[in-house]
């Protein structure tokens, strides 16, 4: 009879003694939790011994348990190493879970609203312990995931694993690739900084080129003609709900297909036209428990460790200034994995290259297994398909290069050069002008003319000469006018150039040398050029840096410098309005009795025309705590 009114553990204790009852209870619980393995089985498995029980208990978790029901109980040892899979499929799955976990942690601190989102980013960085690490990991993981999934596809192509019977596996994988791209892209918008807004604006504007429904698609995606509160909410929901749901389902489908057909063997390991993945000889079996399981746990640790190290020392997710629809940053590009479309867009028509071309390319990829029906997976027999694979890689690389801002988008040389020196931190880079340490920003005006290289003079003599010259020809005054226009205070304007204080400010010198170097690269567009850096005090702990470029104007048409017959750039000369004189030297009058004017080139004392001098400037404010130079 039981001690309590129902059968209980106490009965066991009474019957078997305490120690035995406890051990058996634990054993029983472990066996239930693992769906088939008791303590002894686990001990044997992780010691690398053979199972002592028959039938093999290590197979029951696959048959009876949920968590392993889709994992095969054994693998062919030919597919358990690096080759032929390079573990890319496993890595893709890893990132699905990695991104989900880090993403959920970030969701706790995020509100999808244009008024709040950017502030939430700042909160994550300034007030959430480990917030920066989570954000870095999520972002880096996303970049890796896109790359890994794409590489996984290329590997499948190269080993011919898409061939019969795995056509549909290939297709589902392609869908996963597209989903991964969209997932990453939809997450791009969420920080609501300049980088997000403009990368997504460019990406989303491609949807608009779709014929007939383009406007509707665009409206659906953005929620309004322009990206705003609705667009952000939609991208957020896509990012955290719709796309992940699809991705999980498709991941299941894809893996199910992989298992149904077995992991494809290295091409040389099976006979031509034969698919022997499902028939694994006894001596080639590697069981999931314990070998593959320990292997995967090890990889799990190793990859996470590597990402942690990268995110602590080598990578920080970018966060630019608050999104501003009024300010288009120079050199805006789509995310790197969509650069190839942006590159293609530069080839011509928006619809053909922005919509039709990517769709056809993806369609062709989807059809690949149905078009290439040759039985052999051996490399030697697939020269055409391998060539095609390399062509695809090359074409994507070239198109991506073409998608970069520097390719075929012309900005005037002076804008480009000053931008190089001043741009805000973006893509882990920052304009070199911002890297001058605060205490090396010594107030004064400095010019690159000092660096033109006159060995026969000291720097001080050279600057004296430059000052005399630029004061005499009005170029210095022109610079002051420009600075005044840019709101430099009247009492802050410099009186003359100073020698660059090389000893106290080596970094300042270095930046000026770089400035000079860039200017010297453009002898055609910027003839007789000098650059200047004017540093002024603005507030306590805040300096203002004005970057000025002054040069002789050349004739530019359609973004190209016009050349004369001798191959020299055509200089634009300054002109002025002078009264027209008749033969007697008297001013001519028009009907209204006003003197008639004509435009005449201005001449210097020697009677030579004076080139029109142009000036360009941009400026930065630098606060001593901003730490661009760390």
């Amino acid at each position, binding site marked *: 009879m039981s001690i309590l009114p129902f059968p209980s553990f106490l009965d066991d204790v009474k019957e078997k003694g305490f120690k035995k009852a406890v051990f058996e209870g634990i054993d029983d619980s472990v066996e239930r939790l693992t769906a088939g393995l008791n303590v002894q089985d686990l001990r044997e498995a992780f010691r690398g011994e053979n199972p002592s029980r028959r039938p093999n208990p290590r197979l029951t978790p696959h048959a009876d348990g949920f968590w392993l029901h889709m994992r095969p109980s054994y693998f062919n040892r030919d597919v358990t190493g690096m080759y032929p899979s390079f573990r890319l499929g496993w890595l893709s799955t890893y990132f699905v879970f990695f991104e989900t976990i880090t993403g959920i942690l970030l969701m706790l601190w995020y509100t999808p609203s244009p008024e709040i989102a950017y502030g939430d980013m700042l909160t994550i960085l*300034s007030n959430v*312990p480990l917030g920066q690490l989570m954000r870095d990991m999520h972002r880096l993981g996303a970049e890796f995931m896109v790359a890994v999934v794409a590489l996984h596809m290329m590997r499948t192509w190269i080993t011919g694993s898409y061939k019969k019977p795995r056509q549909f596996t290939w297709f589902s994988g392609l869908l996963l690739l597209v989903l991964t791209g969209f997932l990453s892209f939809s997450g791009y918008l969420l920080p609501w900084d300049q980088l997000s807004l403009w990368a997504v604006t460019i990406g989303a504007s491609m949807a608009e080129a779709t014929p007939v429904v383009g406007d509707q698609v665009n409206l659906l995606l953005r929620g309004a003609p322009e990206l705003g509160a609705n667009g952000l909410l939609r991208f957020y929901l896509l990012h955290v709900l719709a796309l992940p749901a699809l991705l999980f389902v498709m991941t299941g489908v894809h893996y199910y297909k992989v298992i149904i057909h077995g992991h494809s063997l290295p091409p040389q390991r099976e006979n031509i036209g034969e698919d022997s993945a499902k028939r694994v000889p006894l001596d080639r079996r590697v069981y999931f428990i314990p070998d593959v399981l320990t292997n995967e746990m090890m990889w799990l640790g190793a990859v996470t*460790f590597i990402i942690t190290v990268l995110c602590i020392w080598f990578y920080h997710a970018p966060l630019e200034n608050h999104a501003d629809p009024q300010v288009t940053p120079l050199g805006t590009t789509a995310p790197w994995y969509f650069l190839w479309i942006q590159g293609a867009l530069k080839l011509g028509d928006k619809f053909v290259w922005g919509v039709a071309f990517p769709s056809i390319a993806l369609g062709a990829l989807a059809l690949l297994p149905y078009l290439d029906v040759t039985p052999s997976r051996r490399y030697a027999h697939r020269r055409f398909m391998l060539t095609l694979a390399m062509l695809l890689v090359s074409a994507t690389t070239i198109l991506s290069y073409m998608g970069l801002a520097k390719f075929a988008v012309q900005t005037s040389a*002076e804008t480009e050069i000053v931008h190089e020196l001043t741009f805000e931190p973006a893509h882990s880079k920052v304009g070199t002008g911002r890297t001058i340490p605060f205490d090396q920003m010594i107030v004064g005006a400095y010019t690159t003319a000092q660096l033109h290289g006159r060995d026969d003079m000291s720097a001080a003599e050279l600057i004296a000469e430059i000052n005399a010259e630029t004061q005499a020809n009005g170029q210095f005054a022109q610079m002051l006018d420009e600075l005044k226009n840019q709101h430099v205070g009247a009492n802050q304007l410099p009186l003359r150039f100073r020698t660059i204080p090389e000893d106290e400010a080596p970094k300042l010198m270095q930046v000026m040398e770089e400035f000079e170097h860039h200017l010297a690269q453009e002898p055609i567009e910027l003839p007789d050029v000098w650059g200047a850096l004017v540093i002024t005090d603005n507030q306590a702990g805040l300096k203002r840096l004005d970057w000025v470029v002054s040069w002789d104007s050349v004739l530019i048409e359609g973004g190209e410098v016009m050349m004369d017959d001798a191959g020299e750039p055509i200089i634009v000369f300054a002109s002025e309005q002078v009264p027209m004189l008749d033969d007697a030297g008297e001013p001519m009058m028009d009907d209204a009795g006003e003197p008639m004017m004509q435009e005449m080139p201005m001449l210097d004392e020697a009677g030579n025309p004076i080139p029109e001098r142009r000036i360009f400037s941009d400026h930065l404010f630098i606060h001593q705590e901003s730490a661009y130079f760390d």
Partner: protein
Amino acid sequence: MNLLVIRSIDARILMGITMFVGIMILVGWVAINEEARMQAFVRQHTGRSIERGAELYASLCSECHGEDGYGAGDRAPGLNNPHLFGFDPVGEQTVAITTANRTLVRLTEDTEKLLAEFTDTENPPGADRQDEILAQLDKLEAQIAEQQALIETAVAERVATLETLDTAVDNGLFPLWDSVVDIETTGDDEVEIFFNSNGTRLAQVGWAGDLHGYVVTTLIHGRPGSARVYPNSTGMAAWSQTAGGPLRQDQIEDLAAYIINWDKGANWTSEDFLAVAQYGKPLADGSLPSEPPPPPAGDNVAGILARWAEMEIVGSPATGELLYDAEFGCTDCHRNGASAPDTVGTVARIRTERLTMPQFTSYTIEEYIVESITRPGDFVVDGYSSGLMPANFGARMTDQQLADIVSYLLTQE
């Protein structure tokens, strides 16, 4: 050799455990340093916020409030201004006088007590005690004289300081000064009370919140009435989008951070008052206040064209090209026709393709171009995205600049 990368199960388990322990150590190490990192981020972010604020200030505010924050041309008050930051020019003296007065009260009480004891007829002090009291009274007398001297010095200093501020006071530093205070005759307590309610800007306007709130609120809602105070002012606009202006809240905060960064804290001096333009000092170089900048062209197409005719504004294609290429960066998009219509051929396309469309039949080419620049959303050429072209060019260009660009585009056959 194509097998599990590490063959021995022991080695795999060891490797895995090492990795997981490694992750825990690394994350733990990061966690320990988080407090310092977050503080550093806040400092860095504040610095960058001030930088962005400086940029906004230079382009939007400096015209009226002055590049250096001292105000310009009787258009707006100086913000780099001790009064705004609550610096009391005579605070030190007021504190000295108050302290000395309290000491005086105590000393006087002590004196009275001793005198009462000395003159007590019922219980007269002994001869020794009398000598003692007399000695103490001498001491107290000296101390009282000392305190009175202190007060005198402080009052004199306060008068001197206020005299140096005469110009500032005359120019309205303390608007109620004349009606309340006569520095020669008004009692110290009253002067103290006056400075408590007039000494700082916030006290003057009866602002109960802090300076940051005051600055942010002013930026958001503007100060329409300031036209009555500053002869050349048209009233400060409401800058925040919430009040119909152009700036987002984060930009308002950046501007406030910049303005508040002028605070010198304990280092303000009464000379700083005199640097502020509105307190009567002529501008630093003795020059007259500059003219306000020409107003922007706006987006009323008919109005713009009428103004050009009336004011005889004629564009220069050469200047227009510079503005088009560099200043406003139009060629960044308007080239090749990839993201926006090509610049080359503008006129030809307008003449043959656009003006033949029913809605443009009454347009001139010039009118079409002006509308396209100032109101880009009204019509978008087929095949290009709406909303890509900024809609604020009308607000950023003067009439002359717009005319220059139009005349340049008219050369693009």
